């Protein structure tokens, strides 16, 4: 597919699982970050086509990173998906407002994530 994806999630097990599902689906260029600062830096360095952000991150949130990236760079590229693993943090309206392109649940089979990716890149 040739598209580069940046994954930002502080849970190393989740990262492994999602990476595996992504590469099974044919997305082989995957970079990852485990925190907000690392995520923003890599977004700049790696110039991914799509960024996937977990809602809950140490000291920050996927929403904050999304907002920062949209303000710094481009309002339409890269595409951004915000992903939530917790029922407490479900806020899709906020996701849209900070400029995310889509919002989905983090599941053990990554089905909603893969569907969202298909629609964007």
């Amino acid at each position, binding site marked *: 597919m040739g598209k580069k994806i940046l994954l930002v999630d502080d849970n190393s097990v989740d990262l492994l699982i999602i990476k595996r599902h992504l590469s099974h689906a044919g997305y082989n260029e995957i970079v990852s970050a485990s925190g907000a600062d690392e995520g923003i830096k890599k977004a700049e360095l790696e110039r991914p086509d799509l960024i996937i952000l977990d809602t809950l991150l140490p000291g920050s949130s996927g929403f904050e990173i999304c907002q920062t990236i949209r303000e710094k760079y481009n309002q339409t590229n890269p595409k951004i998906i915000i992903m939530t693993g917790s029922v407490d943090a479900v806020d899709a*309206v906020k996701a849209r407002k900070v400029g995310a392109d889509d919002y989905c*649940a983090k599941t053990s089979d990554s089905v909603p994530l893969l569907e969202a990716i298909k629609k964007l890149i």
Partner: protein
Amino acid sequence: MEDKDKTKEELIEEIKVIKARLANLQDLENKYKSAELGLKKAKEELEIEAWGHAKTNEAIKYLYKELDKKNKELQTLDKLKTDFINIASHELRTPLTIIREGISQVLDGIHGQITPEQREFLSICLEDVDRLKRVVSDILDISKIEAGRFKLIKEQVDIVSLAKVVIASFYPKVKSMGLEMRENFCKQAAIAYVDKDSIIRVFINLISNALKFTDKGYIEISVRDKPTDIECSISDTGRGISEEDIPQVFGKFEQFGNTEMAKEKGTGLGLSIAKSIIELHQGDIWVKSILNKGTKFTFTLPKYIEKDMPEGEDIPGV
């Protein structure tokens, strides 16, 4: 007179009116344009909200499916754990019984006379086989209790008699340790509605525990008939438990203090099992202790009331 002859003044007036009307229309058009803009914005906001709610609902649906899935996995793992423990325990018990039998027979002289040295070594082996059997038994019980499969067969039991039987079985050991065994029982029988074997177990575990940590003095067992329940306690003049250790006393595999010095190594599960059994009977159990002075374990058991029925039955008119 005809309109053509309108005066200049009248015409100027008319133009003024038309201009005013034009200004009004302009004004209205502006208002309409800004209202249209406002509506557009509101529509966009509503679209975002609608999108947001749809996405939120979808995400919640997926997350609940995940929770359900993880729940089922946990239940499967739990059952696997219980099954494994049961199978392992049975597989351990059988060889232990055979080993014990073999050692016992040789010690009894059935297979010929044995030297004092041989007796000494075989006795040590026997003690450890028994200890291993206790560990396996305890683990099996704990797993049953945790799986909710520990069945109680309740009946009328005189706790004083029950305590006396357990104390009798400990006499040799207490004597050999140079300790005193005291009894403090109420005058009449103390009838409780309990599962006999498991309460015997509680007494055994608590007395064993007391003996483990007492070098001198006495162990006292008391049974009192209280208005609402039967209250039993096991006190000792042993080394006691520190205040910070008290909360962990009933925890699994907890062993405090210098267990290397303890006369008989325990499983670390005895108190936990005792607590579970008492709680299954809807009783209470607690401990009071002073370091280097002694410890007192107290528990309560439900009294037998005339109208207590065997589990599950409901005989009318009785």
